């Protein structure tokens, strides 16, 4: 227990985070040694319905994200480094579960009539043809499905880009409202009347919504182009 406590303390110390941010490979090894066994144990105990191999893949992705983003981590911020890593792990696993659930919904398969009777040779040819058509149909349905699953990551990316397209004033009021500051408090900071700020907030939300829809449509167009390009290659 004493050793564990020391590891937690060291990993969360400012000096250690400094080493990580400076790209010290030994520091990252220490971080992995200290956190990974617990993180992997935590994920498998909380998500026992997820395939263990998928969890291993997710955990390796989490390490990759941590390695890439640790430079942005603020040791003086709200959470410790270990907390920040566990949040990344939890979010990544929840996204994975959501994705699986959506795929399972789309992959519902109806047993075709020809498999119930007929001679085996014909069944094989017919099955090939059926599988090909079934696949095309699934792709078509997925593209046409307005309620189709959009991963949280994609949504967040679109919101991030939409936010960047807004003016600084609009971004500020959205952020301040998000941390539950009321209009009177914001009015003191911004030097505006609360009623004005209320209107500004409403308009900022509308602008954000419009910009978000635009970003999401652009993403879907890009995806569409990618599918078309893949199809062209197959031909």
């Amino acid at each position: 227990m004493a050793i564990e406590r020391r590891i937690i303390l060291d990993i969360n110390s400012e000096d250690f985070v400094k080493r990580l941010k400076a790209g010290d490979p030994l520091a990252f090894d220490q971080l992995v040694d200290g956190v990974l066994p617990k993180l992997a144990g935590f994920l498998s105990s909380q998500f026992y319905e997820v395939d263990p191999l998928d969890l291993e893949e997710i955990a390796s992705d989490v390490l990759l994200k941590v390695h890439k983003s640790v430079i942005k981590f603020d040791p003086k911020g709200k959470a410790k480094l270990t907390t920040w890593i566990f949040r990344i792990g939890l979010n990544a696993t929840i996204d994975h579960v959501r994705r699986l659930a959506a795929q399972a919904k789309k992959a519902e398969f109806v047993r075709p009539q020809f498999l119930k009777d007929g001679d085996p040779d014909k069944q094989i040819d017919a099955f090939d043809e059926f599988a090909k058509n079934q696949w095309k149909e699934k792709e078509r349905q997925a593209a046409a499905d307005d309620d189709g699953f959009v991963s949280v990551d994609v949504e967040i990316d679109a919101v991030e880009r939409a936010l960047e397209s807004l003016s600084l004033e609009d971004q500020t009021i959205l952020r301040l409202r998000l941390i539950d500051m009321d209009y009177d408090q914001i009015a003191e900071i911004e030097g505006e009347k609360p009623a004005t700020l209320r209107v500004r907030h409403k308009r900022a939300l509308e602008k954000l919504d419009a910009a978000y829809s635009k970003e999401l449509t652009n993403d879907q167009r890009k995806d569409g182009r990618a599918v078309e390009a893949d199809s062209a290659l197959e031909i």
Partner: protein
Amino acid sequence: MTKEKMAELLKLTLLSRYDDEINDQLVDQVLSKTEDAAADVVIRIQKRFIEKRIGQKITDPIKTVKSEYTFGDYIETIRASLELSAQDVATAIDEQPKTIEDLEKGRILPWACSTKLIGALMHLFKLHYDAAEKLINTSAVVLQAKGPIYASARSNRGKMTETRGNSTARALERFLAAKKKSEKPSEDVSHWLGELKGTLESEGWSELIQS
């Protein structure tokens, strides 16, 4: 989109998800109470992580290398450029860190290692056979020129340090490699290279052999 949905997305974007639920206190408890994952699971995750890190930087097999590099020199240079430790490399290929360090410093020569070990290193760093052959030939030529002597160095006050010794040895190797004439490697090394090719084939790493 509804106001609620946009508010939720904004929260997810600007604040970490599950901020409220996953706080320092809970994570400290988890760290002290959760059972560690099994060691083999942890190692597999580390391996995948290292493979992914390398895969992000090196996408195609490397076919050309500088002529003054020995095999060990190259492995150390590419490892350092990818910000990986010898321990990382060792974990990724199921080897001891000391073996990797010895290979890098020229204390072990590539053809004295199993072709499986060198093949695994090549696979990890996507090093094509043509490039590896060139590096190993340079290692052989440098060995012939300098003999099995390790360079050491003196620091300002007469104290030898391993770092300075390694650095001097590296400089000497590069000098010898630059001055080398196009000599053929010994029969032993040539034979070993043939076995290495066989190992790459049997492991199914054809992308490292194809021209």
